[in-house]
């Protein structure tokens, strides 16, 4: 009955999520394991939301899952250049849903959504999508971008657009 290896629960859950997200993919989001032989590394493509400076861009991110997923959250990192208050220079996404309660590197507001097994890859990606539309300047990961977003929105939008064009090779 327990012929399960370490990570078997995680693997089962990741397969279920993969089936779900493939069948009912939310608009603007694609996500899948990079290889069938490793369900613990996913790649996600996120389309920049309309009416934001990110519109027109398609952003690639890597999701790395721990062996005790979904008890612990994955790490999410954009592999394309991103200029955003809540994304570190190395691409790592800093958003409350990727942190369990008690793990509080950025002093998120107490009401902000946290990681727990009731969350999912889809919910993470939807949160990231809304983060692109509405940065949270209280938990800045890119201080320069946070400051620019607060003080000079035009300049911020211009930098974002330039970054997108650059990464698309335009």
């Amino acid at each position, binding site marked *: 009955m*327990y012929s399960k290896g370490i990570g078997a629960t995680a693997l089962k859950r990741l397969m279920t999520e993969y*089936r779900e997200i493939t069948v009912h993919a939310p608009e603007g989001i694609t996500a899948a394991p*990079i290889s069938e032989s490793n369900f613990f590394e996913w790649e996600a493509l996120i389309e920049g939301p309309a009416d934001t400076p990110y519109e027109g861009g398609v952003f690639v991110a890597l999701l790395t899952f721990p062996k005790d997923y979904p*008890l612990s959250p994955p*790490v999410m990192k954009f592999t394309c250049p991103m200029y955003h208050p809540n994304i570190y220079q190395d691409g790592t996404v800093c958003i409350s849903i990727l942190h*369990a*309660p008690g793990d509080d590197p950025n002093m998120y507001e107490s009401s902000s959504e946290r990681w727990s097994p009731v969350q999912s890859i889809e919910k993470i990606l939807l949160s990231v999508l809304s983060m692109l539309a509405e940065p949270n300047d209280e938990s800045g990961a890119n201080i320069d971008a946070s400051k620019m977003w607060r003080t000079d929105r035009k300049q911020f939008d211009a930098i974002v657009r330039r970054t997108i064009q650059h990464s698309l090779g335009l």
Partner: protein
Amino acid sequence: MNANQPQPSTNTTTDAAATVATATSTTVASQAQAQAQAPAPAPAAPAASTQPELTDEQILTQMQAIKDEEANAHPLVDEAIGMEELLKEYENGNPSFNLEDTHDRMRRSRGDALAFAWFERILLAPAKPELHQKALETMRESVNLLISAGFESMAYEDFYQVCIETLEALPTMVPEQLLKIFQTDELSNSIVMHFRLVASAYLKLHEAEYAPFLDFGQTMSDYCSMHVEAMGRESEEMMLIAMSKALHISVEVAYLSANDSEEVNFLPFLPDNPVYMPPLVLLYRPGHYDILYRKSHCLDGVV
């Protein structure tokens, strides 16, 4: 036998997912490749800090190593030991500590106490068939609670599966096997997670009754996601209330507060329905609970 029992049918699920995997992963991969061929970004500002940067994988590996180290030092649920072990910890403490008069053993845990105590009670009870039947019913009905509270099946089915499989196998188990299950992270955590989700569902469905105990401005949903649904968070009193009501069990918690009382203070948590087993007795520790074994329960042949 029970119409309410969910049918997770995991084998077909897995196969379907694998097929889907074959169908679509190539698309994403090739799109990704196209992206990757775009000009590389200017390297991030050359190291303002000189700290070596760890990759995500290294961070995950290190975190796992820390967890493993902790797990090796203290199992999730330990062997039962005599009360003198607890006394040693309190040698210089309050002399009025008298738990050993009424309890003859204890068992340390790292946060799985209530779930283990529940399973162990059913395993060791003399009237096992009846108790086991009742426990199965309770466990199956807990899924309805989760559904009523609006949980998606994906969020609970894997945890429930481990719980119900363990419970179904209980009549053929010896105590060492149960302990082994609770010392295996993945199985133990799944069972504990199911109990937590059940507590969360109960609180959400009874929000009107329990909302007055929340901090100002906090909703029950906030409370549950911050304290109940996440592993490793201390089970506060509200969670014990929820579990005793949802599982129809009574729980007594001993608080060894040194200043306010001569006697050890037992706080009872009672279900609405008549109880079908003597109370599970827990010892409050900062951050978790240990299990206590009451002498009177042993005399009755009930552990």
